[in-house]
């Protein structure tokens, strides 16, 4: 089984969860190598944004990735198990003192599709500025009036004098796979899914 794992936050929580569920894992301190073999299994550590691409093209059989990315990209992979970690929420956030009454609200986000769709449903005029990181800087520097971003603890917001205006939806990590993988190794996959989705332990 080839497993693509989103590097960082998700990776850490996933490892712990896999240990609990008695699934194969990678060493706790994996160093800088990006692929790790563990028995018959291979773990591939990539950016969150790329996990579904490995699964979609068959370069990985399964993947562990944040639901925010799947929601933004709707890539059509099988989103088989909702995992009990990587929990956060997608929210509109901005300065405590809100900028009022402007022609067009400027919104910065790493999730432009989610942002557009959210404001469309509210029939609000917005200018979307897509960013790749550190979105919380946008309101501070005047690049945008507010942001659409994931909020976990709220610490980053607080540190930047921002507050959450509105929650859009909540998020958790997901275990994904493809029809191809399901065709090739149905039994092993079913076993993994069984373990991952056991409600008892979670």
């Amino acid at each position: 089984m080839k497993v693509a794992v989103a590097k960082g936050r998700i990776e850490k929580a996933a490892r712990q969860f896999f240990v609990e569920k008695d699934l194969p894992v990678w060493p706790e301190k994996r160093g800088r190598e990006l692929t790790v073999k563990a028995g018959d299994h291979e773990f591939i550590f990539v950016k969150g944004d790329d996990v579904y691409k490995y699964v979609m093209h068959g370069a990985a059989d399964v993947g562990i990735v944040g639901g925010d990315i799947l929601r933004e990209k709707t890539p059509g992979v099988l989103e088989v198990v909702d995992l009990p970690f990587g929990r956060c929420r997608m929210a509109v956030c901005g300065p405590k003192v809100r900028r009022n009454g402007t022609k067009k609200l400027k919104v910065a986000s790493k999730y432009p599709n989610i942002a557009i769709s959210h404001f469309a449903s509210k029939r609000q005029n917005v200018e979307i500025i897509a960013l790749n990181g550190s979105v919380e800087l946008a309101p501070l520097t005047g690049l945008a009036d507010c942001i659409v971003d994931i909020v976990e603890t709220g610490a980053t917001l607080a540190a930047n004098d921002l507050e959450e205006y509105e929650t859009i939806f909540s998020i958790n990590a997901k275990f994904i796979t493809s029809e191809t993988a399901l065709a090739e190794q149905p039994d092993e996959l079913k076993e993994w899914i069984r373990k991952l989705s056991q409600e008892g332990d979670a």
Partner: protein
Amino acid sequence: MIWSNSKGSIPEGWYELQSGDVIRPKRWMLSFLEKAEASGYAVIDPPLLEYYSHYQNLALFDESAYYRLFGNDGELLVMRPDYTLQIARKLADGHEPMRVAYAGAVYRRTVKHSGQPHERQQLGLEWVDGEEKDSHLIESFLDMTEGVLPKDRLTLKIGSAAVISLIAKETGIQERTFRKILALRNLESLRELAETYRYPLIAKLPFLIGNAALEELRAEAPDSLKDAIDEVDDAVQHLRSIGLEVSYDFGQTGDFDYYSGLTVTGSVEGKRVLSGGRYDSLYGHFGHSRRAFGMSLDLEQLDEVMK
């Protein structure tokens, strides 16, 4: 926003094929069409461009996947997105049973920089209003594609859109929504549905896969699903009896929302090369309802495993 239009460039997702890559699929298509015609199939080549208005409310693909353009009078046209639709448009008025063969390319825009082609070569058969059993139609398809598709390396999976449909009807879940969730095989959402509608089978459905699946399903299914399940059982028995490798997949929804009965997918070394199923509801969209079963081969995928 900037694209490459230097002298030699080609739009993304399009390719310039050479020698064998050109000739091989042409050989497969011709061999298939000649065999099909000799066996009494009507060989049909529908036009490359169609009125988009025929398809716009079918919602089979995301709107952005259609290659749309305008006709001489400003009417919206679409490059053939699918053969089954075209054949349904053509035959929906008819009353005689028909057996149809086609071969050619379908066109769908794919996501930018996703490495997926916009043109796909296919060949396929459609049976309209015939009396034959689905499993015999599958067998016929394999006969007509002999020399193209290697039967001995093929694994078939049989599912049932009828089971899905019946569950939707019994529970009152909107069928289109149910299919969408099932297509993602998302356990959490399906568990929620199972609980809300007190229908535990729903939560198991996505992974009722493999040889034991039939018995698992029988054990849990209400009587109302019996016929649909038996139909799958019969089909699998027949296909095994003629030496094919077949198993169950009750979680498969088929590529299209219009499937209404048995569904079939086939892979060679994990690549899905074949798909099809029964779709008795589609014809109603174009005229009056007719029973129909269709199967097609993806020559792109097949080429990858045959090389």
